[in-house]
């Protein structure tokens, strides 16, 4: 058994940064707590570097439960990079806050849980990672201690509690009938287990993962948290945990190969993308609109997840789409953080008032639609390819119709940008930089997709 802790170097970097930040924050005066942000950012950068080095090495399995393979590499890099952006966004919001240190540390711990969620191939570690990723996020959602934030935190927690309990039940059931918790064991064990028990176990397990992914039926918290939580945290919870959730879903599907997996996930994907798109139509609050947009994007992402193990296109599709989605979603939320405006009408004239931020928003929104040459376009192409290759043409059709329909509400946001400016207010500098960087990354990932995929 491989028990080399160096294989977990990126995770250890994050953990050490969180512990150092927490310990250091205890002794720092309030005005100098920004140093914790620096420590956390340094930890994330170190983790990114370690993940980059690890990505050049051969695949391996650490501690019999932690797979170091392409899925893990992409999860690590995307999660750590996104978390770095969230720390930058949060820095402007919780500056000199009495609990500034805790804010950064909670973000790092949740990100750590997310990485493990995507990397593990054991149900017990999956549950632990689920809890580590979720519980700091509940606290973060209510960090503002205001009424909407508290309500959002409570709803988030209650949904997470119910679906987490169901997930625990599913893990219990699956480990019972599969005679083990490691995926390779389960693959053998589930093959000759009773179908009904497997179905119930898989659906119960899915409940927790779909909650993290923000897909039907675990999507109810998404709009409420995106609207009620502080904007930087809204960006975090709609982006980072999803990365780990999709990686975990893909890994479970690809490594245990339950019989009903493709049909089950296809139904969930179709329902998720349709519901997200339709509900986004009438939104006037941009954070609710983005929340429903993330639900619909989760639906598209579930398409290659459903095709796990059925086609070679599924893995690149999941990984590319999840990275593209993270970049694009962070860019859009960064614009919301930068402008501080929540109402759709307040975005009138943004392109003239602050052209760079407005342009970044346009790039990100067009990216969500899947316009070339943005990153999501490549992800969507791979997604459609996976669906057709996996003989789920109807799913591809549903996705195409949904993509066409989604143009409506993204354009609802783009069009006012070109109008005359109403009240000029300069956007926050740090968040603007994040937005522009995200838009550039989206374009770079779209244009350089050939290099990235090879």
């Amino acid at each position: 058994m491989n028990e080399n802790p160096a294989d977990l170097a990126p995770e250890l970097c994050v953990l050490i940064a969180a512990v150092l930040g927490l310990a250091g924050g205890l002794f720092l005066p309030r005005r100098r707590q920004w140093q914790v942000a620096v420590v956390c950012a340094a930890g994330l950068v170190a983790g990114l570097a370690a993940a980059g080095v690890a990505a050049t090495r051969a695949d391996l399995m650490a501690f019999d439960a932690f797979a170091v393979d392409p899925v893990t590499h992409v999860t690590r890099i995307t999660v750590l990079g996104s978390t770095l952006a969230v720390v930058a966004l949060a820095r402007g919001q919780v500056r000199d806050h009495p609990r500034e240190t805790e804010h950064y540390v909670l973000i790092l711990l949740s990100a750590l849980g997310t990485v493990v969620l995507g990397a593990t191939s054991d149900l017990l570690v999956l549950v632990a990672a689920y809890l580590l990723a979720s519980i700091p996020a509940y606290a973060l959602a209510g960090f503002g201690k205001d009424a909407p934030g508290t309500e959002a935190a409570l709803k988030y927690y209650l949904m997470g509690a119910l679906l987490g309990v169901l997930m625990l039940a599913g893990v219990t059931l699956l480990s019972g009938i599969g005679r083990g918790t490691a995926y390779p064991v389960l693959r053998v064990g589930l093959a000759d287990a009773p179908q009904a028990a497997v179905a119930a176990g898989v659906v119960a397990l899915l409940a927790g993962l779909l909650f993290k992914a923000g897909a039907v039926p675990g999507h109810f918290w998404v709009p409420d948290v995106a609207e009620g939580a502080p904007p930087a945290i809204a960006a975090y919870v709609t982006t980072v945990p999803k990365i780990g959730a999709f990686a975990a879903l893909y890994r479970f599907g690809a490594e245990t190969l339950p019989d009903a997996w493709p049909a089950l996930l296809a139904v969930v994907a179709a329902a998720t993308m349709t519901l997200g798109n339709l509900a986004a139509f009438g939104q006037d609050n941009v954070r609710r609109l983005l929340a429903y947009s993330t639900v619909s994007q989760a639906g598209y992402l579930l398409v290659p997840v459903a095709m796990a193990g059925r086609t070679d296109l599924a893995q690149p599709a999941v990984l590319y789409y999840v990275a593209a989605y993270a970049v694009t979603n962070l860019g859009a939320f960064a614009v919301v953080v930068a402008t501080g405006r929540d109402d759709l009408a307040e975005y009138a004239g943004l392109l003239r008032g602050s052209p760079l931020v407005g342009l970044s928003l346009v790039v990100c929104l067009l990216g969500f639609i899947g316009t070339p040459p943005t990153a999501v376009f490549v992800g969507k192409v791979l997604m459609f390819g996976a669906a057709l290759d996996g003989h789920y043409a109807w799913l591809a059709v549903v996705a195409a119709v949904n993509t066409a329909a989604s143009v409506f509400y993204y354009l609802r946001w783009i069009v006012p940008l070109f109008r005359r400016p109403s009240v000029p207010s300069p956007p926050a500098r740090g968040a603007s930089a994040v937005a522009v960087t995200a838009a550039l990354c989206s374009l770079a990932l779209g244009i350089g997709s050939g290099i990235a995929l090879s």
Partner: protein
Amino acid sequence: MMLPGWPGGLAVDGLSAVLLATLAVVLVAVLVHAAGEKFGARFYVLMLVFAAAMAVTVTAADLVLLLMGWEVMGAMSYALIGYLWPDAERVRSADVAFLTTRAADLGLYMAAGFAVAGAHSLRLDDLAAAEAPWRDLVAAGVVVSALGKSAQLPFSFWLSRAMAGPSPVSALLHSATMVAAGAYLLLRLHPLLAATGWADTLVSWVGALTALVLGAVALAQRDLKQLLAASTCAQIGFMVLAAGLGSVAGGTAHLVAHAAVKSLLFLCAGVWLSVLGTQRLGELRGAARRHRPVGAAFGAGALALAGVPPLSLWATKDEVLADAGGGLLAVGLAASVLSAAYAAKALLAVFRPAEGGAFRVPLLESVPLAVLALGAVVLGIPALAGAWGRVLGVPEKSDVRVAALSGVLAVVTVAAVAGVRRVPEPAWAVNWLWSERVALAVAVRPVFALARALARFDDQVVDGAVRGIVRGGRWAAGLTGRRVELRVDGLVDAVGRSARWLAALARRPQTGQVHMYYAQAAVVLAVLVLVALLAG
């Protein structure tokens, strides 16, 4: 080289050199003479461009340059004939002359195209070597355009129209340029004509018949310039005959001598026209006696034109006829009798004693007359001495019997005309054989009729079809707008309405109440278990 990959350019050989020298001398003489008549700058510009175009034409070594010179010369002839543009009739004459020569020029364009196809070269030297069907087509095109330019039958009528221009223009156009260009081209391309086996015979007969028929036309004229114009056609006919017979030396000699004679005669006619205000033979009675130097020059020119020995045209014509045999010789001799007759008629008219005082002619106008008259008298000597053949590098032949016969015929004819004091004026020849009317009937009217028919076709069928398509399109658009658009629009509206309805429905589950979320999640998960069971 005008076109890359197509050799050619300007080149001067014996023939070109002779023509260039002739052109230069006649041009200087005409321009010096014209300087006495006070023309404007436009006149000199046009004259110089006209002469330059002729110079390009005679030095061109390929068809492209030749065509350029040829075309510019045609355009300048139009501008010069219509020089007095306020007179609508003169402009109309210029139109006729230009359109006639221009129509014949198409032959040269076709010849160029056929040369590219058949000889893969545009060089004049290479044309004779073209492949069989192409060679004949090239020769046909060249012959048509040369006959048109030289006012040979059946294109002769344009030269009558060309008399609308000022006299110096006529003097140049009838001698060393324009009409000479056609003869030059045929002389230059004699190897091509000979190679076809039919073109040389055709050209010989056209030349001989033109000399004969237009000689008769000249005889019938009562207008000095019209008489001279018809005689130009007839004399060019001898050159064309020479080209057809391959008598390049004789043809060239005749061209040079005729250039001197004809420019002299036209300048004299111009002097009388400007002093006496007429060119009618009846009204010019005694004109030659009223200014002796001009009269003497005209007399020398007219006697040369008559072919009286030992003047120039007698010697050169003999050289042409020396190569002819049988029918062509007979026609040629008949034509030379006619030329003696019309020259005598003109002589008689202007030398007939009449009252009227002497008039003055400026020195500038009379000096060129003297030079040209000298040429008209002595230019036969090189022909007698066999100089042309040495200059041109071709064999030269003369026949003493033919020379003696034509000399005797000319003297007898002139003496007879002087004796009887009147000449027959065949009615059919007065109006140039009505050849302009024939051309109108045969070429112009059918073309216009065809054009009108095509215009009707264009208006009614082509344009009508377009309009019909437009009408059909509007009708279909109206139909689509009324019948289909409403339904499609309704469909789009329905999609939009149902999408909005579905969107409202999709927001319903988001009640904001956690117990409802719980219930819904539970129901959906139960359904998913069912799906998993059914699918598994």
